[in-house]
């Protein structure tokens, strides 16, 4: 196994809290995934077109026409807290 992963950093970025056991388990699993990617490097891919998407489909879009969406009461229906037509959450300051 050539790869080492800082699993706690990765978990922090994903807002996950891992137990010691989970950390060991996931670290090994993720390292395996990265090792697998190395098999690609063993092949000559110079003539292969870059894959931009797993599906061989392009150009799916819509015209610029606006349509009303949810009304405000619906949009806020699941909000645990709201005020003055807005979602209210704990104060965040960057």
């Amino acid at each position, binding site marked *: 196994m050539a790869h080492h992963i800082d699993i706690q950093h990765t978990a922090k970025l994903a807002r996950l809290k891992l137990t010691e056991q989970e950390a060991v388990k996931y670290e090994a699993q993720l390292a395996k995934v990265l090792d697998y990617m190395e098999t690609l490097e063993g092949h000559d891919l110079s003539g292969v077109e870059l894959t931009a998407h797993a599906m061989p489909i392009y150009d799916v879009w819509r015209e610029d026409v606006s349509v009303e969406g949810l009304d405000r009461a619906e949009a806020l229906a699941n909000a645990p807290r709201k005020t003055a037509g807005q979602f209210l*959450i704990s104060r965040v300051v960057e």
Partner: protein
Amino acid sequence: MPKYITTIGLEVHAQLNTRSKMFCPCPAEYGAEPNTHTCPTCLGLPGALPVLNLEAIEKTLLTGLMLNCGTPEISKWDRKNYFYPDMPKNYQLSQFDLPLCIGGGVPLYDLAYPKDAQKSIKNPGKVVKLTRIHLEEDVGKSTHTGAGTMLDFNRAGTPLMEIVSDPDIDSAEEAFAYLTSLRQILIYGGVSDADMEKGNLRCDVNISLRPEGQTELGAKIELKNLNSMSAIRRAIHAEVARQTEALDKGEKLIQSTLRWDDERGETIMMRTKEDAHDYRYFPCPDLLPIRTAPLVEAARARVPELPHQKRARFEAAYGISAYDAGVLASDKALATWFEEAAGADTKVPAKKVANWVINELLGRLNEAGTPLEESLVKPASLAELVSIVEAGKISNNQAKEVFAEMFASGEAATPIIKAKGFEQVSDTGALEALCDEVISANPAKVEEFKAGNDKVINWMTGQIMKSSGGKANPKVVGEILRGKMA
């Protein structure tokens, strides 16, 4: 004391003026009541799927064409992952390795520099190189109050173009000129309203200093919260001074993000490299790539005459100075206004119309703080006034007075001239009588004139202006006097 080289790169976010949002058809309208333009997609509800807005893609490609960018054959969308409440699905749809536009540049127009710096432009004709332009979605708007943070998702998912420059800008003045020129071009292309005060255009500045002689760039410091053109200039000056002082003291600068406080005139540390974001970009499986060639061709048909092209045409077609042409071309609406006025009466010299637009109209608009669209004077009525002045019916000073009245009331020139009793007497019969009077009353002056003193004409004309109550046409009077005393 060592000298330092300043290197600046700008990241500009420009809101595209499409009717609907980037990935859902909600109205992309500003100023609506909070949370009245949302749907499951822009609220980030589970299971909702995004669909690309073709017009936003075309407007971005059009921007690329206006700025001489290239475009990869295939362009695709990626997820930029981070957690912040203004973006509830926890990733921003953006573009990573295959953006819509690559390379290109922004020409720095002379008149785009701050007024006080226009006389000392270090690199005239400079084109600031661009790294890329990509298309992404804007986030919601948060308002921080004592009770907590309020979130409005009307803006969430609206199309946002990120225009990234190379570290190719040398000074605060060049940064100012870059933004001004870029704004002009975006407005010319009709892709964005590009109003910084309204938040249509937002700018982050990357700035680093290194000692003269060193090739490697210094630590990159990012400045955020720059809300006006003048704030950007002030912030860069303050940050260059701060970094210079630190380097002089032998301190080591570290990569960091600072917040500009315009009121206090200083930068405040937000975060350093240690907690820099790791966005873990990956291709968005929900959005399919696009083949760009036909879209670039469609956008090519929409490329307008650009400010520098318009300036050159104005100079050639109207015989106006490069400076005047530059002033008129710097604002698309102003250029259109001028062309309408100059075209309203082709007998009126366009050069005179240009003078009136630049000196009188712009002067009064600036003084009153009125935008051009709200001007009560219309192009055709200015053309009429200029034609009256050119015909010698009123003097230049009287015309300025008439214009002031037109500007205030929106009335046409002719009724104002009548009401003020400005109409000059060009009726030669009436003028000849006045001339005869002056000549017979001043035989000594007539002798002086005959002896070669041409100034007598001015003196006599003055007398006639007085006796006519200022209504005599001085040009005609002069001719009559010369004829009679010859």
